[in-house]
């Protein structure tokens, strides 16, 4: 890069190309629709004429003499046999036709009106005023002129012009030909154009009707040669071929006096081709298609939309030094690492500049060639390319490696393959927050997938049902430094969204550590040793001797991974999560997690301790010991969890939801009672006896009453079912520890599914006055309005199943609507915040220095460092200080 600004945009002017201008900038008048002759040489005055540029190596441009990469391309032109309207100016043409006189071409305003309006327009300058204001004024004036049916200048009676979309204008049913339109436009005096917002010097309205069509340079529409040797032309060239062919036929028919009908047909066809050449998605005409049936991609389609030039090639581009593949889990990797398959690592390179200090080692490196392995056949980084100081790239092969290694001198650049320890950026789309792209260090692994620690699923929102992720190799020292210091996973553990950890244990990690610490089980020595072999511990904890055998307590094992000096107490999820008073409430050994000097004295480890989003231990380790220690804790915590649960074993199944026959009949009983109660309520309502709740109609009151009745039985049935499902039940363990699902889900499976709803109310739509034809019209009883008595385990009857599907659909629709909306909002926000910068004084500014906030977030607080939005956690700090003082 040369740096500095060589030119600045002073202004942008919008204008129309006049036919003369098109001819002037044209290098060749294209007259034949053919492209190449039999030898494959471009035909003169054809669409591939050499005057319009070259795309084939060896040939030279007939205009500038440049070779393939030197010639910028040049325009040609087509003389159309008859004029056609330009699809982009239909609206403008309509306004011009409506507001001007069909005979004299003047705007249909009296001289006085013209004078007073001209004064207003003179005050605004066409080139500097807000286009929107000019547009509004112009609309007002032209609307007024269009209303007038008699010309104030020549007295001609006017006729109404109707636009028959997309391109036909009709006057009292008779078509106004483009030729006629052009003549009318020519009659409009220069000084009346200002009322239409046109600058007469650069935009005459008759230029909106095309007589000459510019032919874009060949560089814009290159032909491609297929493997078969067959040549395939660009869509634009195809379209231009059509235009030339029809234009020729039209000219011939006109010149030898063919019937008017044939000429008109051809003229319409020419209009169609020119219209679709500009925009092949014009409403009202079928898109022009390729022989294969594929719609052609013409000018508008090249620019518009997500796949268009702007969004796909300018705002976002494809990048080199990146890889994409399926992801899979690897619990033995650190959260800071990413497993990269060898195949990818061999392709991805890091440039190393050779200097006097590294020249010898780089020579050794290059000598190894492009596919080196160590004595055990393990991957070693090789070199793919070496770049000479003059910029020439040399591809390294096993054959030329030795020789090239001798040529290397300081100043050369060597593109080295990825190696263990390189820092790379890892990303999963949609990139909704900054943790969607984090820095990882590379581990080269066997296999074909990217792998990472399960704790990192949360920030990426990844799972392994086929998700793919992208990897970017950093090419510069500054970027590598930034990635290490601010983007590395361990630096992103705290979320700026809520000031707590977003990286932590998930699913089995939580289940496992819950089982390890709840009621402090004793683990036999051999199992303990096996589990701890996954960790890098220094010494075994204090054993517990029972019946002459050595055991280790679960909490003592967990304490091994806690950093020394950690003091912490908090309530476990087991108790905070319970709806009613928790059965462990009175036993502090279960309720309170109590950690002193890195030793867990009592409590239960669950979601509240180590979960992502909530993990209290992770949070406090981060605050006291920083990112590196936290990463180490999470690494060891996930290893311990996986180790323990593999030894202990854990599984779930439908038998988790077995409850005694008596409970099932009890649930059936209360649900029958609920239906009765609803029926009674409805009866009361029908008799007009129902008392409305304050501020509500009787109907609303009835609905609320029924909803609360059905809601109550669902809760009740849940309670009945739960009474038989204790903490020895795997599903309950998962729900109570926060690993997966809620108690509600369990009661849905074992007890009763309950009332289905749409928008917070009972189901009520479908047929007239009923949800299904199985019910009587106006039946508003519990069953007719979506009350599901069955449990998932029992199975739903067809009617219940249908009701359930109605309720389920709401969720799906919600998600669909929400994602598309939040996606668009995200795009707008990112575009608005792009280039904003927080300076040393914490002031938020844009690129010109205009202030957005005087202090970041009004208080200068980094939400990442806040304690869930609060300044400081007083209780924790007090406890910590107290304990430290005691030690």
């Amino acid at each position, binding site marked *: 890069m040369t740096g500095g600004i060589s030119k600045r945009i002073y202004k942008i002017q919008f204008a129309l190309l006049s036919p003369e201008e098109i001819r002037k900038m044209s290098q060749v008048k294209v007259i034949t629709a053919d492209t190449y002759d039999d030898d494959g040489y471009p035909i003169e005055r054809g669409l591939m004429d050499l005057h319009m540029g070259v795309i084939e190596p060896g040939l030279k441009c007939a205009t500038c003499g440049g070779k393939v990469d030197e010639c910028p391309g040049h325009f040609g032109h087509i003389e159309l046999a008859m004029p056609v309207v330009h699809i982009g100016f239909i609206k403008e043409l309509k306004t011009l036709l409506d507001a001007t006189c069909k005979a004299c071409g003047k705007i249909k305003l009296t001289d006085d009106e013209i004078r007073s309006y001209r004064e207003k327009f003179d005050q605004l300058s066409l080139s500097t005023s807000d286009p929107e204001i000019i547009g509004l004024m112009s609309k007002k004036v032209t609307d007024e002129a269009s209303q007038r049916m008699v010309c104030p200048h020549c007295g001609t009676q006017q006729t109404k012009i109707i636009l028959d979309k997309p391109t036909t204008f009709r006057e009292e049913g008779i078509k106004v030909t483009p030729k006629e339109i052009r003549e009318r436009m020519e009659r409009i005096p220069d000084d009346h154009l200002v009322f239409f917002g046109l600058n007469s010097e650069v935009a005459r309205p008759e230029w909106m009707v095309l007589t000459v069509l510019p032919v874009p340079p060949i560089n814009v529409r290159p032909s491609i040669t297929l493997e078969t040797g067959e040549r395939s032309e660009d869509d634009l060239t195809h379209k231009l071929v059509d235009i030339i062919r029809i234009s020729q036929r039209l000219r011939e028919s006109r010149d030898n006096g063919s019937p008017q009908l044939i000429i008109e047909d051809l003229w319409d066809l020419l209009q169609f081709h020119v219209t679709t050449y500009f925009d092949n998605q014009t409403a009202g005409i079928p898109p022009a298609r390729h022989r294969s049936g594929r719609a052609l991609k013409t000018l508008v389609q090249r620019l518009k939309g997500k796949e268009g030039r702007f969004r796909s090639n300018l705002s976002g581009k494809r990048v080199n030094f990146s890889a994409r593949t399926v992801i899979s889990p690897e619990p033995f990797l650190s959260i800071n690492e990413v497993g990269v398959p060898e195949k990818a690592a061999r392709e991805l390179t890091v440039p190393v500049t050779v200097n006097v200090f590294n020249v010898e080692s780089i020579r050794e490196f290059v000598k190894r060639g492009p596919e080196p392995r160590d004595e055990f056949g393990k991957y070693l980084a090789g070199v793919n390319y070496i770049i000479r100081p003059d910029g020439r790239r040399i591809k390294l092969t096993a054959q030329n490696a030795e020789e090239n290694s001798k040529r290397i001198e300081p100043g050369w650049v060597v593109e080295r393959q990825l190696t263990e320890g390189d820092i790379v950026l890892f990303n999963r789309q949609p990139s909704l927050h900054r943790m969607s792209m984090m820095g990882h260090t590379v581990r080269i692994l066997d296999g074909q997938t990217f792998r990472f620690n399960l704790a990192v699923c949360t920030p990426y929102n990844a799972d392994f049902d086929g998700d793919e992720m992208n990897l970017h190799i950093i090419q510069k020292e500054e970027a590598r430094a930034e990635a290490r210091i601010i983007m590395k996973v361990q630096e992103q553990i705290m979320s700026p969204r809520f000031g707590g950890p977003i990286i932590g244990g998930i699913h089995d990690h939580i289940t496992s550590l819950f089982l390890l610490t709840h009621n402090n089980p004793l683990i036999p020595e051999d199992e303990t040793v096996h589990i701890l072999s996954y960790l890098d511990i220094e010494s075994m904890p204090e054993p517990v001797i029972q019946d002459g055998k050595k055991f280790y307590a679960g909490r003592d094992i967990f304490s091994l991974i806690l950093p020394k000096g950690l003091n912490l107490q908090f309530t476990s999820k087991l108790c905070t999560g319970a709806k009613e008073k928790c059965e462990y409430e009175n036993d502090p050994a279960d309720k309170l997690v109590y950690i002193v000097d890195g030793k867990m004295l009592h409590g239960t480890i669950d979601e509240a301790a180590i979960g992502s989003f909530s993990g209290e231990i992770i949070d406090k380790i981060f605050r006291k010991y920083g990112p590196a220690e936290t990463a180490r804790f999470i690494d060891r915590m996930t290893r311990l969890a996986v180790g323990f649960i593999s030894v202990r074993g854990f599984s779930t199944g439908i038998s988790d939801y077995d409850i005694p026959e008596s409970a099932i009949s009890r649930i059936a009983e209360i649900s029958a009672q609920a239906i009765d109660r609803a029926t009674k309520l409805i009866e009361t309502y029908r008799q007009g006896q129902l008392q409305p709740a304050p501020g509500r109609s009787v109907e609303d009151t009835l609905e609320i009453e029924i909803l609360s009745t059905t809601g109550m039985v669902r809760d009740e049935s849940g309670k009945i079912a739960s009474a038989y499902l204790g903490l020895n039940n795997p599903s309950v363990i998962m729900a109570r520890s926060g690993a997966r699902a809620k108690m509600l889900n369990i009661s849905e499976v074992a007890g009763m599914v309950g009332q289905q709803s749409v928008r917070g109310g009972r189901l009520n739509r479908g047929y007239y006055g009923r949800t299904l034809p199985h019910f009587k019209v106006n039946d508003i009883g519990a069953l007719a309005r979506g009350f599901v008595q069955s449990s998932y385990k029992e199975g739903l009857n067809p009617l219940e199943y249908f009701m359930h599907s109605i309720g389920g659909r709401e969720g799906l629709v919600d998600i669909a609507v929400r994602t598309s909306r939040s996606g668009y909002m995200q795009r707008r926000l990112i575009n608005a915040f792009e280039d904003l910068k927080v300076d040393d004084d914490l002031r938020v500014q844009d690129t010109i*220095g205009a*202030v957005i906030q005087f202090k970041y977030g009004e208080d200068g607080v980094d939400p990442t460092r806040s304690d869930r939005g609060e300044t400081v956690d007083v209780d924790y700090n007090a406890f910590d200080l107290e304990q430290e003082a005691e030690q």
Partner: protein
Amino acid sequence: MGKFNVLQHDLVPEHHVVPKSEEDKVLKELEIAKDLLPKISRSDPAIKALEEIHGPLDTGTIIRIVRRSPTMGYSTYYRVITSEVFK
């Protein structure tokens, strides 16, 4: 019922006109040129309410806004009146 004054609404922060004589002091304190201050449209309801009290306000007048803040107690913000209409 009298005319509704937006400034009295609970969710609208305090808006004060910075007197011309204090402007230099404020700008110096903020170390900023006036045209780099955040803008407020003269058609903003808060400006209209202020004009009821102070009479017509020129474009270029600096408005001091005092907002309640859960972390700071309150925070001050400055905006300068422009004739632009924001859409």
